[in-house]
């Protein structure tokens, strides 16, 4: 039968992420496309032991319904971790989600009516753009100048666009890998607070730091709960578990509880119990250190390969953490059009246009360095340069 969908369905796009998940599965392709951590670094035996302990204790409550906000001891553990990073929080401020994507969706559900404006970095995380779009949001770009975020222009933009939300990934941003300075973080918060616009601070990559010291989260400066902080175990543990969290004011947590109840009641009890066990019995920081070292090698390698193969015509970001490098070719190139031939040559990237809210032509691309092996990075970047005949 012919179905009549809601209007919002026309705003739900089949995304590059989805197609890319398929692409990345083909073994002959060297993929710089996915946003994937390196699977060989998953702490598999530790997770396995955690499940064994949790399931082996003979307590059926690990497979029982749980509360919507999440397993209390895990929320306590996460709030401890958040405090150690300078983000003041109690267990009451922590809300567990099925990965931070669900956090974005629930927040969008609570805040966005059709036509509302979200102010964000352009380019931004594709999954966030699409979720906001599925609620029929409009977009405005956070203005920047040579020094970074332009707080005067930002204030004008807020007055002009009256955004419902500001969305930011301040640390090792996806897709560019860039990081906001302390001054930029404070400036955004100051302007947003002045006009009462909540900030979503998306921080999936903060732990993946390869040099320098950690910058404080925007939420750590926040006194009025204006900042909604999103964290995830996808990069530090494993993405297939689907576990993330939100740090927010208690009144917003209460709203989130109601929203998530209608969505899926709560996040898997077993997963929360096992993760709690893992955090309590294994050295999560040591594991993160292992990932950092491995990814740093890969980043350095990709940067030197780019230097060797692309230095004449292209420019690229030099991220101090995260998973991505943003490569920009000369303007005459269109990375959307180029992708099919690059794929034929067995290399994959994500065309930069997908990360903009107004998908025009774009000569940039996102390259992931965390998932491919060092050898693949060496071969793949050379191959890419050859195919593009730069």
């Amino acid at each position: 039968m012919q179905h009549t969908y809601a209007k919002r369905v026309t705003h739900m796009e089949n995304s590059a992420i989805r197609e890319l998940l398929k692409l990345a599965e083909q073994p002959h392709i060297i993929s710089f496309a996915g946003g994937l951590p390196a699977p060989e670094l998953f702490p598999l035996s530790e997770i396995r032991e955690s499940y064994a302990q949790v399931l082996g204790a003979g307590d059926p409550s690990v497979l029982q319904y749980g509360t919507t906000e999440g397993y209390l001891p895990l929320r306590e553990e996460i709030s401890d971790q958040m405090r150690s990073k300078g983000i003041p929080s109690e267990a009451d401020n922590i809300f567990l989600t099925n990965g931070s994507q669900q956090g974005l969706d629930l927040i969008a559900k609570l805040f966005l009516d059709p036509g509302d404006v979200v102010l964000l970095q352009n380019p931004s995380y594709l999954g966030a753009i699409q979720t906001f779009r599925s609620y029929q949001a409009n977009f405005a770009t956070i203005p920047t100048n040579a020094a970074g975020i332009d707080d005067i222009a930002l204030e004008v933009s807020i007055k002009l666009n009256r955004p419902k939300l500001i969305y930011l990934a301040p640390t090792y941003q996806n897709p560019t890998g860039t990081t906001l300075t302390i001054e930029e973080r404070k400036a955004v918060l100051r302007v947003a607070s002045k006009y009462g616009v909540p900030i979503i601070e998306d921080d999936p990559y903060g732990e993946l730091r390869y040099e320098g010291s950690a910058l404080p989260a925007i939420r750590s400066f926040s006194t009025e709960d204006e900042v909604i902080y999103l964290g995830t175990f996808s990069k530090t543990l494993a993405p297939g578990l689907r576990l993330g969290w939100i740090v927010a004011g208690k009144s917003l947590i209460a709203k989130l509880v109601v929203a998530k109840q209608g969505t899926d009641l709560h996040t898997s009890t077993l997963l929360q119990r096992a993760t709690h066990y893992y955090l309590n019995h294994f050295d999560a920081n040591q594991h993160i250190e292992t990932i950092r070292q491995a990814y740093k090698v890969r980043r350095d390698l990709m940067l030197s390969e780019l230097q060797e193969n692309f230095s004449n015509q292209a420019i690229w970001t030099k991220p101090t953490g995260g998973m991505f490098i943003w490569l920009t070719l000369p303007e005459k190139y269109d990375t959307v059009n180029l992708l099919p031939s690059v794929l034929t040559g067995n290399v994959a990237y994500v065309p930069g246009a997908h990360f903009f809210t107004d998908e025009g032509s774009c000569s940039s691309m996102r390259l992931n360095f965390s998932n491919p092996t060092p050898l693949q990075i060496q071969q793949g970047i050379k191959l890419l340069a050859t195919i593009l005949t730069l």
Partner: protein
Amino acid sequence: MKLHIDRSGKTPLYLQIRSQIRQLILANDLPPGFRLPPERKLATTLGVNRSTVVNAYHELVADGLIQPHVGKGTIVSPPQPVGPSHDRFTNANDSEALGAPVQPISWQNFYTRQSERLHNPVLASILDEIGEEDQISFALGSPAGEYYPLQEFSQISQEVMRPGNWQAFEYGPTIGHYPLRQYIADWLSQRGIRTQAQTILITSGSQQGLDLLTKVFLEPGDYIVMEEPSFLGAIGVFKASGAHILTVPLDQEGLRIDVLEQILARHRPKFIYTLPTFQNPSGITTSLARRQQLLKLAYQYHVPIVEDDPYSELFYGNQPFPSLKSLDEYGHVIYLGTFSKILFPGLRLGWCVAPTPVLEQLSLAKQHVDLHTSTTAQWVMTEFCKRGLLDEHLLIVRKQYKCQRDAMVYALKEFAPQGLSWTVPEGGYYLWCELPPGMKAAALLTKAAEKKVTFVPGNAFYVNSGGKDRIRLCFCRHSETTIREGIYRLCEAITEMLNQSQTKGTTNRPRFTEPLV
């Protein structure tokens, strides 16, 4: 036209009048063309303010059920059937073209932000009570923890998490882990549902299926149809969408087809939501004849059916009737299933079977919502099922839950005071009880809490007012001994309230609206 006004209740008088006249019109007791009494006259008859009747009539006009005519008074409208190819979004223009005046719409229902409509205190408090071990809860619709296959599950998770099997921890496709979908397809095929892995979406529990359907199909102002009483989680999510919920009463054979037909003759609902087997909360199973009539109406009026089927495997007598999905010849049924009730709920794993184009839309919506359901959970569940452990488990719980149901019924027979009645369902999770005349479930809840026993008050399962004298008791969670103790406590609470009201001569008023604290 006989109306009954309940002045003690919390429902505003005008809504009571509206809902009763609506029922009369839909049951055809007030046929099209029937002239309603003038507002002033009805107000005098009922002993209410004229404005109360005016407001009730306004709502009915907005519902499209009645129409004021100058000189003639207020007349019951004829059904306005719409053709199958009709585009909903041009409704207003069409009715203008037909010469009928454009109906005013109760916009206040739509202007509220979705977040303000999201409210489900009952569900929240049911989930909150988990872990309060000193009380006996018949509220939470949970399986019995003592039968959870912890050991087998532990063993299998160890095997799945073997060294090098990183795949079980990676991002996966939104639609779900293929081997699990394949298993479910085969399993459903054995139950008469012809389906393939390609048309199955794995969801984070069937609640997510409901949420995705809402997201894909419903906008504020849309109509949907559901049984009343019905699953409270579905009521919550549909209400939050801002859709109009049209309710169809149940009788012993299930959904009242005659009322449904009246509704379909007047409205174009986006879908009919039904829980035809061992319904939550009533325990009623829709008869085979009604199932066929329901499908026929869906074909005739071109309306999709959402069949929610968490309980059909939990039968304690004969195998239940075939699902609507298995009887559906023209792809009108969207089917929701879950592991939560037949196995355990803590993994949050369910599934949705739908025609390919719908499934693609649902997957797309799910991608934006949470990318995909936990890969790890899906891998472990796949192995568990493939080893035949799900089917083994079903044999155990069918036997046990039957005993528990019988224990609850037996205890009620022994302890129940005069006036308390209950259903005996052939399967599922719940006994649906009617309290002695005059007793309100909300008041009883307070009394029962003192005795450390809980249940869900009936009004939670009603879209409109109703169910205040009903309670739902889940018999699956506790052992037979605990059930007996719980029923004893509950009946004691009821008896005490009966005695109280006799001595005081007044009925207890609900003291709080959020039932379970």
